[in-house]
């Protein structure tokens, strides 16, 4: 496995870079926030992304996608992350597409994948039930009644849950809270009876929801993957999401760092540019090193996923954890180095910090992934 982009991935990156710079600079996010957009992402922009083929990157060609793989979508996430572009890429193009392409039946694939690729539907994956990400702590239940499944429970912090047409829900079919077994995935149209979607406002002004399931009744074929194999499946689906999200977070870090470096080169105090101060130079140099390490961890994780590397779990945890720690550092230092304007709403740098903290929590924080990495490494 080479830790460099191939030609195809390089082309996707270039195209995403142009798109982010021209179509969705940070002001695009600002105006969505100021206008209190109900989706927190722009339908026209999403349509443009779909037209570029981004919604189908993880979808096989026979279902209308391009099958460019996780590294392909990750380099796009990294570039749009540089301008804090909100979009359904993570929840739909990565999680939804990967879940159905990997675990769906032929019927499910034929039904959903072309609609994802063409932008007709968006999806969301509902896992968390507590304040911390603990997939195996799922207690939402799915019980077989006659030839139906009946689901009850409450899901939290569902990324893009407020707008998704189709939900992929992790529920318990046997066992108790904490068991990695006894879990099953279901595909549910979000408008069926018994589903209540409660939009939640988070610090980063993106699209999230809590979802209540009250006697949601589903046909037998609503299973995604085999019954009782949801624990293993969700882990693999989320790992792809974690790697793509780590790439987006790397893009966040790179951009916040760039903005800050430029500020150090133009802001004067005591009659000199503040970038001449060694106290700031050394901290900037340290951030540079951390960003370089993050690039390597993300690159290895996404290229490894491409190669079906059996170390996927460990690499996903490494990438998500390191990307989170680096973004944490860079977002804090960026605000501090901007001084007073760093804590004003008028200036963009604060957006990066708010996005950082939310992204750090999604699909497990540094703490969760450090523990997971350690257990997988026999520490």
């Amino acid at each position: 496995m080479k830790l460099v982009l191939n030609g195809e991935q390089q082309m996707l990156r270039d195209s995403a870079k142009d798109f982010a710079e021209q179509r969705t600079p940070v002001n695009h996010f600002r105006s969505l926030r100021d206008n209190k957009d109900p989706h927190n992402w722009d339908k026209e922009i999403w349509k443009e992304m779909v037209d570029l083929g981004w919604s189908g990157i993880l979808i096989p060609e026979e279902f209308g996608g391009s099958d460019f793989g996780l590294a392909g979508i990750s380099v796009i996430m990294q570039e749009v992350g540089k301008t804090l572009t909100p979009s359904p890429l993570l929840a739909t193009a990565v999680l939804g597409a990967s879940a159905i392409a990997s675990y769906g039946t032929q019927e499910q694939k034929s039904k959903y994948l072309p609609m994802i690729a063409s932008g007709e539907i968006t999806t969301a994956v509902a896992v968390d039930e507590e304040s911390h990400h603990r997939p195996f702590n799922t207690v939402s239940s799915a019980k077989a009644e006659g030839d139906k499944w009946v689901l009850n429970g409450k899901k939290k912090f569902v990324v893009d849950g407020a707008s998704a047409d189709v939900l992929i829900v992790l529920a318990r079919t046997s066992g108790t809270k904490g068991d990695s077994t006894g879990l099953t995935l279901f595909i549910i149209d979000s408008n069926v009876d018994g589903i209540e979607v409660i939009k939640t406002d988070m610090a980063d002004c993106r699209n999230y929801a809590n979802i209540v399931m009250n006697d949601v009744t589903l046909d037998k074929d609503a299973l995604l993957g085999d019954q009782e194999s949801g624990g293993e499946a969700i882990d693999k689906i989320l790992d792809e999401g974690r790697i793509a999200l780590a790439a987006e977070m790397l893009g966040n870090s790179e951009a916040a760092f760039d903005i800050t470096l430029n500020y150090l080169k133009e802001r004067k105090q005591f009659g000199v540019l503040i970038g001449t101060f060694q106290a700031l130079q050394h901290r900037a140099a340290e951030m540079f090193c951390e960003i370089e390490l993050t690039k390597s961890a993300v690159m290895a994780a996404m290229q490894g996923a491409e190669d079906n590397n059996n170390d996927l779990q460990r690499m996903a945890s490494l990438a998500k954890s390191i990307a989170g720690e680096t973004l944490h550092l860079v977002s804090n230092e960026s605000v501090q180095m901007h001084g007073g304007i760093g804590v004003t709403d008028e200036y963009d740098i604060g957006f990066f910090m708010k996005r950082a903290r939310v992204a750090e929590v999604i699909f497990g924080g540094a703490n969760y992934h450090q523990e997971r990495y350690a257990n997988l490494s026999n520490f």
Partner: protein
Amino acid sequence: MEHLESFRKEVKSWLEENCPPSMRSGSEADANSASDEVWGGRNAVYKNPESKIWLDKMGAKGWTMPTVPKEYGGGGLTKEETKILNEELFAIGAKQALLSFGIWMLAPALLEYASEEQKRLHIPRIIKGEIRWCQGYSEPGSGSDLASLATKAEDMGDHYLVNGQKVWTSYADKADWIFALVRTGPQEPKHSGISFLLIDMASKGVSTKPITLISGKSPFCETFFDNVKVPKENLVGQENAGWTIAKALLQHERNFISNFGLAGVSASGGGRGNDVVSLAKKHFGEEDGKIANGIFRSEVINHKMKEHAFGLTLKRAGDEGGKASAVASMFKYYGTEHNKKRHEMMIAAMGSHGVAWDGNEFDEDEKNLTKAWLRTKGNSIEGGTSEVQLNVIAKRVLNLPS
């Protein structure tokens, strides 16, 4: 491809025939052999005679510097062939035939800056391990501010007359020759009055004195030059243009130190047996296969994940090819700081056994680790301190203003 496959076969059978048993790590012969770190040179002592055989074989092939052209005694191999050679050496656990500042630092600089005669004279002797080199850069008054160096070389017509003192010269007491920075232009601005001079340590007026370090060992010396006559042909490059060569050589040195400190780092994140995890399990105990002390374990995790990412960064720099030199300072800074932390964690894992010094109550590994821990404190000072590396990153990579 076909050529490379047949090259691999050749290498395999050559190694099978020529690499002595005791020069293969982990072999039975190895377990019973004496210490066989080989630095070569005129006064080399070979405790294990097979280590001399191994050096001579590898030197004759030019494989101690495989990519150097054959006319200078190198292996004349392509990058792909070198990769194969390294893989095959690794596969049989072959030990390094020669440790040498000549290989790591001087020869690459000579290839770039020396005259044809100098290359033909010096590089083959480095490759064969006939001449052991040391580096004369730092002076008592010139540490981080290296360019302020004062050792002077006066033009006496047919030779230079060198007077002054160098410090931190690694193994000067064992070296045959020294590559030194000297001031030839006392009136010039400090960077433009420096020349790069090769000096035979056997010359009249050269003397050395070992410096005892906090580890109790003396790998460094002070080196004195008292009216030393050096032939003009030993000047590398132009007079007063030595700073450029000095900087190029520092890059090689930084690359070397950042790798050298990180023997345990690999792109897969796997550690060696004697790493902090196994030490912690041994001394704190294990619960369900985990390090039994939770607080220490979380420190270990953090450290190991950073190490994994750093290993991947070294690999990425290699895969990107060539771009690494722009960030040599990053590797030097991060590698040495990480190595210090690694040793701090190893001795902490061992409790009182981590601070053992001498006597029969402690085993050799324990006593050696204490010394190794102290030695790492120099890693972030030698070859440019961590603070100097951060300055270099800030100015040359990030283009922050001065």
